[in-house]
């Protein structure tokens, strides 16, 4: 047998440092988990029902590589209605297997070996590895609590060198819940345009924005021609398991991405695409109710965390809070492990999302109000025993 079975790229990829912690949580019973990165709602019934119906009707085949025309039409209409964006359903929209595939294919379509991509840290875990797998090099921009974990124009400018080709954005973001106002985005966009960067913008939490309206990146001046806009159905419509998302961008980029997509994935599953059609064309009522509920929980969660002495900036979107646990004098992993063992509450150590997450934990409030209350009572006991 050859010595090097596994490719160098994969060998060099850093394994997740908190896999052991995850295994610990998954092996334990009766845990209240605030560590879940998906909605606690089940996909609304009208969406599930329409997918069941489509299976009964015999929709079990491949679809066009780019996705069902019907779905791309709805996506184009939805983007037009919400943001005034014009994307041609024929050659500027690609339906993907979740946003995850979108990120992967975007990186592979855009990067040459050694080209750098800016990624804000802490960030969702897969951006860096996707860049590496595509032959690129991630350059992490360290965000700080002092700046509310926001990318500032100054910080952005400082990190742009000639070998940087693109920037990965994610707002509202996982794990911090941070998002940007239109003004803030405009300021970032000016620099991005000046330095001629490409933008891969993961806006899957866009509908879960609470303090201001979400601004889609391609709506900014001179942004459309350089932006790969990523969105999906997982978070807004509570459809994580369906694995369906979409990418919009300039013709040239979508054509390149479609090439890769057709060889690797062929197409997103048709039953999921049918469900996504219903999500976009059916009743908004259950969706609006979910969003409203997250909003209320956010207020409760942030107040409660600050009260118990875990300093927490107010997240502008998604369903995450990212409080500091520095007052406890424990590392993130220690805090999370001890909290799990002593009080049976699971949270994700901030370091899961990059070294900048040390001293923080991620709390997901995609959990019923009863669970949140109970979990916070237990956390408060833990902090009173451990950290005072």
């Amino acid at each position: 047998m050859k010595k090097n079975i596994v490719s160098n790229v994969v060998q060099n990829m850093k394994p997740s440092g908190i896999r052991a912690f995850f295994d610990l949580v998954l092996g334990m019973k009766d845990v209240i988990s605030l560590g879940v990165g998906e909605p606690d709602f089940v996909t609304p019934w009208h969406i599930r029902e329409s997918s069941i119906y489509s299976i009964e009707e015999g929709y079990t085949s491949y679809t066009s590589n780019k996705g069902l025309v019907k779905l791309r039409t709805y996506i184009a209409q939805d983007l037009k209605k919400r943001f005034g964006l014009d994307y041609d359903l024929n050659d500027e929209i690609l339906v993907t297997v979740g946003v995850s595939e979108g990120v992967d294919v975007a990186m592979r379509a855009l990067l040459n070996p050694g080209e750098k991509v800016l990624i804000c840290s802490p960030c969702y875990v897969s951006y860096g590895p996707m860049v590496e797998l595509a032959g690129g090099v991630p350059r992490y921009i360290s965000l700080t609590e002092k700046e509310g974990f926001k990318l500032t124009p100054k910080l952005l400018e400082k990190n742009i060198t000639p070998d940087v080709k693109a920037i990965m954005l994610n707002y509202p973001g996982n794990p911090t819940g941070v998002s940007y106002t239109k003004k803030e985005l405009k300021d970032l966009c000016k620099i991005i345009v000046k330095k001629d960067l490409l933008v891969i913008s993961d806006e899957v939490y866009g509908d879960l924005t609470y303090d201001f309206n979400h601004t889609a990146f391609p709506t900014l001046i001179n942004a459309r021609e350089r932006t790969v806009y990523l969105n999906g159905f997982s978070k807004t419509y509570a459809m994580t398991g369906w694995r369906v998302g979409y990418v919009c961008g300039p013709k040239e980029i979508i054509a390149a991405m479609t090439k890769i997509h057709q060889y690797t994935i062929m197409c997103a599953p048709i039953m999921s695409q049918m469900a996504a059609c219903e999500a976009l064309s059916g009743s908004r009522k259950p969706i609006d109710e979910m969003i409203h509920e997250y909003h209320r929980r956010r207020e409760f969660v942030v107040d409660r965390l600050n009260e118990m002495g875990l300093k927490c900036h107010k997240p502008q979107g998604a369903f995450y809070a990212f409080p500091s646990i520095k007052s406890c004098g424990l590392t993130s992993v220690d805090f999370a492990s001890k909290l799990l063992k002593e009080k049976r509450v699971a949270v994700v150590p901030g370091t899961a999302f990059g070294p900048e997450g040390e001293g923080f934990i991620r709390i997901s409030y995609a959990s019923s109000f009863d669970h949140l209350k109970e979990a916070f009572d237990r956390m408060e006991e833990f902090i009173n025993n451990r950290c005072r």
Partner: protein
Amino acid sequence: MDEILEILQKDARITPQEIAKMTKGKLSDVKKKIRRYEKEGLILGYKAIINKEVVEVKGSEVRALIEVKVAPQKDLGFDKVAERIYSFPEVVSCYLLSGGYDLLLVVEGKDLKTVARFVAEKLSPMEHVRGTVTHFLLKKYKEDGINLKSKDEDKRLAISY
């Protein structure tokens, strides 16, 4: 609807403190509003929703939906007759409807006989009542927006990125 009412309608156990947090309001204002709603009759009471499909309530319990045809009275319409009917404690709900009959009652009794007796002895002989049709309830699937099957477990992984 006011947000406080919306929250309490979903879960009446949520405390004024928690409501204040959720709505970014002052605790004293929340308390004041709730007191006002109670006084003005916007909030009529608080109770737990018990799944009687699962719990054995003392003795068994029978529910019937009863259609009632009523001859309306001059000047009073249906109101007076309805009042006479819904004042019986056996009547849990009473609605005036359009269509083939006039009143729809939800009647509860400890067994079939009790309900039958109520219809035969109290309801049918009542002045202005022209006729009744009784439907006994066999199974409840959903009530007031709540599915009455046992709760679904959380199918998500306990932790994910």
